[in-house]
């Protein structure tokens, strides 16, 4: 039976739960620190050892948060009923009723793979259409693309989708010439132009896919709970072939639910916003969530990069609730295909999350959101702390070998003080750390096998168990590599070096050996030097550290092999890392697979690749006309600009499109007159060489 809850109840409960969580974490951390100090040669009495214990304490507290959250999530899911699950407030009679508010589905993109974006849009549209409630939704592709080819490709894809789906006046496209404030600015621009037309907006990422029923359900929950400002779903990974991405989407499916339930257990109405696969109430968002520019220069000043956490905090500050609908299915996203892509993304997130530390003490924010800022930053700072801990422990191990033991540290002592090491204490500490790290994984396994009885969806009990074991090996192997990169990211962010906001490479591609050597070479060298020094100076300490040293030495082959789609398929054939969507794919994912297989890459009859948007805008009369008509009204130009554009036009006509820089292409695309002139003159040209440079087939063979 479902009970709608009152605001007061969750607030009181969340306070009690959070106090208990803090007490448990502090207690376990203090105990672990005492153990640690006892293991150390001088029982934590030297400056070096005090520093080690402090860093260890911070790290232990950090991993305990995840452990206790997962335990809470496990208990919640074992009970099978959560009084505070936001979806349980959506009653059956309301589910059958009509939606009253209008919803905009926003797809902000920036130089993305256009085919992928529009395929997902098409599938979401069709899925929504099948629910019979399409009339309540509009789609907006909000482009910030700076690449002229992508810009034209997006316009052509928009026209094609509109025509195929018959979706005129339901799917809209907007291109921003200047992408101020990146994604948050893109969304804000939508709100300023059309926000007043909608009650809710559902924000997608370029790789998001959501089913129609899930979208409807999200709106229903918002309508049922008028105090909710943001409702975040927990997107599941799907559709990947490389080893690393498959491992991640598997862990996302297996461990994600208990961590999601755990997060909800602690946060309740003070939850996260992850920037996509979430529904937002537009009016309060427009009123309270506009982001200011931080004083000072980037990376710590300037525009707020990771806008989502801040928007959630601002929404909450204004009194609106932010909830995680952890049990809502049908929300998907894709994992980065390679380790390098993941690290590139992490570098952006790292900078954004560290920037949040500047807002930590901002007036009016709720304590829970201050903790979220801290938590976000710790996700990366913890890597630096781990690196620091390893450095300190290595220094201690070397010092122990170099230094002459002092058997009489206390003056006038009758008896010597022998340096005693307790390996059983070290093992106990190691075991308890292992439990904290890996128990949540086994709890997830138990939940799937015994409570939810869903092991068949993962290939059966044995394959599921083997997949979890293999995933643990993978996480062991990749943790030191990630640690090294994250430490570097934190360090260079704090040193004031900025990161660019480039688009993510989301399609499947493999890491080349050259690329891997370039990115991991230094880490491998560090692993080799560190290992050699320890091997010769303190052999026993070396063996203790092999789980960290070996992956660092193997980082190059690990990065290359983990990006392999062939190896990924091999594991899939073995029945490892399977996810329910692969065993029994929902209709939307089946459609996606079919569409991907039938993708065309050229436009007929002139063989210009679809990705060469600028060339298409010049050659293809339809694309040319479409692009010109979508350009906003006529502008009066300065004579110098007209002259410059005319020069670009002549250059394009005499040398072909490949000689133009992106900036020159963009200038021509911005000028409808120039583009029409270019189109007409090209089709009238007598020079076959030039025509072929623009993609025309040789005259004789064309027909």
């Amino acid at each position: 039976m479902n009970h709608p809850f009152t605001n007061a109840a969750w607030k009181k409960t969340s306070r009690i739960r959070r106090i208990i969580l803090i007490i448990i974490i502090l207690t376990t951390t203090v105990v672990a620190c005492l153990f640690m100090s006892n293991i150390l040669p001088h029982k934590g009495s030297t400056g070096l050892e005090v520093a080690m214990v402090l860093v260890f304490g911070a790290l232990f507290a950090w991993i305990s948060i995840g452990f206790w959250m997962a335990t809470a999530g496990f208990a919640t899911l074992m009970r099978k009923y959560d009084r505070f699950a936001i979806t349980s407030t959506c009653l059956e009679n309301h589910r059958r009723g009509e939606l009253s508010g209008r919803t905009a589905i926003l797809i902000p993109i920036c130089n993305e793979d256009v085919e992928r974006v529009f395929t997902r849009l098409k599938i979401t549209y069709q899925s929504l259409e099948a629910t019979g409630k399409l009339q309540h939704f509009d789609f907006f592709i909000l482009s910030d693309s700076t690449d002229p080819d992508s810009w034209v490709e997006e316009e052509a894809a928009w026209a094609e989708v509109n025509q195929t789906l018959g979706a005129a006046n339901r799917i809209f496209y907007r291109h921003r010439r200047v992408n101020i404030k990146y994604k948050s600015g893109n969304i804000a621009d939508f709100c300023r132009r059309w926000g007043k037309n909608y009650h809710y907006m559902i924000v997608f990422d370029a790789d998001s896919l959501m089913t129609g029923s899930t979208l409807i359900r999200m709106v229903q929950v918002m309508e049922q709970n008028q105090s909710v400002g943001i409702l975040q779903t927990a997107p599941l990974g799907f559709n990947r072939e490389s080893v690393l991405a498959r491992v991640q989407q598997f862990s996302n499916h297996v461990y994600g639910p208990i961590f999601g339930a755990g997060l909800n257990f602690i946060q309740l109405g003070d939850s996260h916003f992850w920037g996509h696969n979430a529904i937002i109430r537009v009016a309060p968002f427009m009123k309270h969530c506009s982001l200011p520019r931080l004083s000072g220069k980037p990376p710590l000043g300037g525009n707020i990069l990771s806008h989502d956490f801040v928007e959630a905090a601002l929404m909450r500050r204004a009194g609106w609730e932010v909830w995680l609908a952890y049990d809502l299915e049908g929300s998907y996203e894709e994992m980065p295909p390679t380790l390098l892509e993941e690290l590139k993304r992490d570098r952006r997130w790292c900078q954004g999350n560290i920037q949040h530390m500047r807002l930590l003490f901002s007036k009016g924010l709720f304590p829970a959101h201050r903790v979220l800022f801290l938590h976000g930053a710790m996700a990366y700072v913890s890597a630096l702390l781990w690196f620091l801990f390893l450095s300190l422990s290595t220094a201690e191990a070397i010092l122990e070998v170099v230094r002459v033991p002092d058997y009489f540290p206390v003056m006038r002592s009758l008896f010597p003080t022998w340096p005693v090491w307790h390996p059983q204490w070290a093992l106990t500490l190691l075991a308890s750390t292992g439990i904290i790290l890996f128990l949540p994984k086994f709890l997830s396994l138990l939940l799937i096998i015994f409570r939810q009885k869903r092991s068949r969806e993962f290939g059966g009990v044995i394959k599921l168990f083997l997949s979890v074991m293999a995933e643990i090996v993978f996480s062991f192997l990749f943790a030191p590599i990630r640690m090294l990169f994250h430490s570097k990211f934190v360090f260079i962010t704090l040193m004031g070096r900025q990161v660019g906001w480039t688009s993510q490479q989301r399609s499947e591609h493999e890491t080349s050996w050259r690329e891997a050597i370039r990115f991991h070479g230094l880490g491998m060298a560090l692993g080799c030097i560190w290992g050699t020094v320890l091997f010769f100076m303190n052999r026993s300490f070396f063996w203790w550290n092999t789980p960290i040293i070996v992956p660092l030495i193997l980082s190059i082959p690990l990065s290359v092999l983990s990006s392999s789609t062939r190896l990924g398929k091999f594991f899939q054939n073995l029945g490892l890392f399977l996810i329910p969507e692969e065993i029994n794919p929902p209709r939307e994912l089946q459609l996606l697979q079919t569409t991907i297989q039938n993708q065309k890459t050229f436009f007929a009859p002139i063989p210009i690749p679809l990705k060469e948007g600028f060339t298409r805008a010049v050659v293809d009369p339809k694309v040319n006309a479409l692009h010109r008509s979508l350009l906003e009204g006529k502008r009066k130009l300065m004579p110098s600009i007209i002259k410059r554009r005319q020069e670009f036009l002549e250059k394009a006509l005499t040398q072909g499109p490949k000689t133009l820089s992106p900036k020159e292409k963009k200038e021509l695309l911005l000028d409808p007159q120039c583009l029409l002139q270019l189109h007409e003159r090209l089709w009238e040209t007598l020079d076959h060489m030039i025509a072929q440079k623009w993609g025309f087939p040789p005259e004789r063979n064309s027909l």
Partner: protein
Amino acid sequence: MSLLDSFGTDNPTDQCERKPDLVPPYRQEAFHRVFLYLQTLNVPEEKARELAREALQIAGNNQKDTAGSPFITEAMRALRELLVEQLPLLRKESFSLKSVSLYENLSGISSMPPLNRGFMSPDAMDLIPWRTFLVRSLKRAAAIVSRPLIFFIFFIFLLIFFVYLTLWR
């Protein structure tokens, strides 16, 4: 029938009897270009041939007036004029030609709904909060210490601390 057989001539009735090699190369070239253009617009083959022939015919006539202008240029210009006239009719005949409307009706297309302007300005947010936090904390501490009893205890504590520091070797 190959497409070369259907090049544009002054007399369409005898086109089946003419051989391709008798057609002047500039005319063949113009025909190819015009036909290709129509293909990119998804015009059905038969209709495309008909339009191409017509365009070439007009181009032939026009060329007499504009001596020196290349035939391809004239043919393409003639085709564009023809398309503006004929596309609305063509569109009714075939579904595949719907996309052609994009070419014909340039000014009518918009990818965005009408604007309904709202505003979105940032709420007041402390941009250097750590400084405010520090000042706020110091003020609070000062407010607490300024109470007589607490000030006395604080003073004693400072005194003990000072004595301890002085005596400590």
